[in-house]
């Protein structure tokens, strides 16, 4: 054991230590720059309504994801045509979304959603996919409250 110890450890290791430390500092520095230098902009999974509207004409007719809350009171479900319309809001701006098919079961007023599709020139977002973005809260229903009441009233009688 004591024979290979000296053979395995390079003799120059101590001499090169300052270089190694400098290198580690640079790596950590670059990593910090990555995180706090505004690079997070391009890794976002979705845009908020305000960000999408801010893009102006370049935001039209390109595939994007839009995320926000379902604005309470705007949900309309047509069980004949299976057409679903609602507004997505981030508190500042709203965008009307048109979707088809029954939504996921957690869909309700005020729920976080992400829709995939294209924002049309008529200022209606044509959705080809609807996802729920739920919070990190897990709570049982309060006394008298029934889970998923909203969904049942929304989809009732659709037979879907």
């Amino acid at each position, binding site marked *: 054991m004591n024979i290979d110890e000296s053979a395995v450890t*390079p003799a120059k290791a101590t001499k090169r230590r300052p270089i190694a430390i400098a290198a580690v500092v640079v790596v950590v520095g670059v990593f910090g720059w990555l995180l706090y230098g505004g*690079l997070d*902009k391009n890794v976002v999974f979705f845009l908020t309504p305000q960000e999408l509207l801010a893009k102006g004409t370049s935001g039209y007719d390109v595939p994007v994801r839009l995320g926000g809350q379902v604005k309470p009171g705007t949900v309309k479900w047509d069980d004949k045509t299976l057409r679903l319309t609602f507004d997505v809001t981030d508190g500042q701006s709203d965008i009307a979304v048109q979707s088809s098919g029954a939504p996921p079961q957690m869909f309700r007023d005020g729920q976080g959603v992400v829709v995939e599709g294209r924002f049309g020139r008529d200022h209606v977002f044509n959705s080809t996919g609807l996802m729920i973005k739920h919070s990190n809260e897990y709570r049982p229903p309060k006394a008298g409250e029934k889970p998923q009441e909203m969904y049942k009233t929304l989809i009732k009688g659709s037979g879907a």
Partner: protein
Amino acid sequence: MAFADDWRRVRAIAWKDLTTERRSKAGFNGVVALGVTILMLFGFALGPDTQAIRDAAAGALWLAALFAAVLAFNRSYQVELESGALDPLLLYPGSRWAIFSGKLLANLSFVGLMLVIVVLVGIVLFQVTIPAAWPALIGVLVLGAIGICTLGTFYASMASRSRAREVLLPLLLFPMLVPALLAAMQASKALLGGDLMHEADAWIKLLIAYDVIFLIATHLAFEHVIEA
């Protein structure tokens, strides 16, 4: 002056590798042919929609370049392993990282040249209109090539000395390359489309950061990898 010695070693190793490649042009021609073939296959896969092909051009170009480059990385050590030249190389006095730098430089020239040809063919095949910001696009190509070659040269030094190197190199390399490839593809795509949404900047920054981090990390780690 010790640094000057190392630098001379870097150039000597790079020059030696490139000379070997120049003498046997078959390797280079084969790699370029593979890159062009993959581009053509992407063309078939995407179908007759010209606009769809244009949109997918950036992604297809980088993937074709990546698959072709992987062949080059294994080759760069294979020559030495077959002739038994790696052990005497390690016995020379001087820093081990110089070997890595030399190999990296050689691979970079090799892959860079391949990339130029593949991109030119890709521009024709995919009917890409060259954007006004073409110098930035060349910058993205250079940065992307550095990212791919740095990790490729590093992992090939292990994979080429294992059994099943053809499987092992992509298996180790591709997951680690995800950030670099994603950034290179997105930046190229944005620039080819005229960069209307001003996305390219952030992706180029990510590429620079990736290159710096892994250039340093691989140089530090190479010593542990090559001595075994």
